[in-house]
């Protein structure tokens, strides 16, 4: 279980709190979707959980261990995974090498292929390609998801996995989340505006101005989600609109 208590964070030289006294928990096997308007602090909250940014106040606890003082790699080794909204590119690094590092050591060609197939990429074409400017934004995002799936975690954090990818890639992504969610082996936190992912969530957290405006099942926080006469911050998929 991941437990965050009284997390606060202000950017340098700014008095405004980007994250303002946030407390919540994510249960084992639970899928929590964080949604909310731009600038509400969603990505910052994820960075605080992963140790990429340091919280000013509050604590983070993973399975009974206080991880507040741990740095990024220590949190990774404690069982946390993280998928970037805009994954960085690496000149000279092959997809195979990146996946092997992500898996924590050697990864057989078959395992690499399974990971790539799982995110909708034809493995043979990609294994020896470089993770550089020659890949499209959608390809980068899918490889990013594959790096997180490459090893088991206690909890995985996904920062807007749908951003910058095409509809076909998105449907592959949804299938991956359904699989993780169904197996209930790992907890997941996903920042998303997509109704499909929101509907899949066990609970939804609505973030506004660095504070939790609502947290609970879709029905429980429907009034906050549907405020202002629309589905707040979320885009509907074609078949459901």
């Amino acid at each position, binding site marked *: 279980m991941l437990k965050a208590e009284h997390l606060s964070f202000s950017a340098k030289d700014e008095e405004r709190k980007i994250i303002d006294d946030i407390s919540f928990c994510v249960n084992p096997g639970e899928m929590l979707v964080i949604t909310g308007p731009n600038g509400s602090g969603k990505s910052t909250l994820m960075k605080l959980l992963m140790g*990429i940014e340091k919280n000013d106040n509050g604590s983070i606890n993973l399975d009974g261990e206080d991880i507040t003082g741990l740095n*990024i790699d220590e949190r*990774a080794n404690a069982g946390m995974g993280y998928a970037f909204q*805009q*994954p960085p590119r*690496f*000149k*000279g*690094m092959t997809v195979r090498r990146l996946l092997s*590092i992500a898996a924590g050591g050697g990864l057989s060609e078959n395992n690499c292929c399974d990971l790539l197939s799982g995110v909708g990429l034809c493995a043979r074409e990609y294994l020896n390609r470089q993770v550089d400017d020659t890949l499209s934004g959608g390809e980068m995002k899918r490889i990013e998801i594959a790096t997180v799936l490459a090893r088991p975690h206690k909890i995985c954090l996904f920062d807007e996995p749908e951003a910058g990818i095409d509809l076909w890639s998105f449907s592959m992504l949804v299938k991956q989340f359904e699989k993780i969610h169904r197996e209930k082996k790992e907890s997941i936190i996903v920042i998303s505006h997509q109704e499909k992912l929101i509907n899949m969530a066990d609970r939804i957290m609505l973030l506004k101005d660095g504070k939790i405006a609502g947290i609970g099942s879709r029905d429980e926080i429907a009034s906050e989600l549907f405020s202002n006469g629309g589905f707040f911050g979320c885009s509907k998929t074609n078949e459901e609109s």
Partner: protein
Amino acid sequence: MEIDQITQNVLNQIDDAGFKQEGAYNLRYNGQALCHGDSEHIKIKKREDGNPGINVYISKDAQDETVHIPVVISKSGMNDEVYNDFYIEAGAKVNIIAGCGIHNSGCNDSRHDGIHSFHVGEGAQVTYAEKHYGEGEGTGGRFLNPQTRIYVGKDAQFNLDTAQIKGVDSTKRVTYVELEEGAKIYVTERLMTHDEQQAASNMDVVLNGKGSSAQIISRSVAKGRSVQVFHPKAIGNNDCHAHIQCDSIIMNEAKVSSIPEINANHVEAAIIHEAAIGRINNDQVTKLRTMGLSAQEAENVIIEAFLN
């Protein structure tokens, strides 16, 4: 011929394919040929013009054959200059693995200047790999100054792979290439410098023939207070294509100058250059740390991949 442990260690560093006393080979050790052998299609002869070095004759019947010509210097204060010429017949396909390693455990400077020339016949395909390496606990310097002249005949292809990853205090590399009709050259230059090391590379590629092409890729990492200067130059004298790409990672207090130069002397000459110098991207380090690597391990992985 038995090879001592220091020499074997250096050979392991400079010859990725693994040096063996089989087929065509010549091991130059402290200024002398220590051992050498010919194959049916590749003959190695001592020069007769008074200069130290060898002539290597590769017949058209050599197909996917390899010749190893490493140089090892383990004597501190050694100043070795060698002239090696390669004559590759039309249609031959050959890998030439050169490279020089200096083990200097003394207080005097050791130096090797390898002056190589390649005469590549029509339609031949040549891959030439040259790796430089220095080691040893002595205070004496390790200097390597290679000069390479390559004449690529009609429709022939030459792959030039050079790498200097560690331990060379100073290097001045001079490369000159001439391409005839339909000839191609692919150059990959990899360099890492550290501490107070200095490295300079000047390369002229002259595209004389119609349909000739050149691709020059240079990747370098400069650490410590080291200094690197690159000056690749493509000169298009005909209907030809050339692409120069120089990428450098700069760290600590190092200095890097990248000066790609392109010259077109023909209306159909299409020549492009790109150059970039920058520090290691923080997002790259963060990404690898989220995969469990420490910041230092992440940096090493990024550099290793970049120089791959």
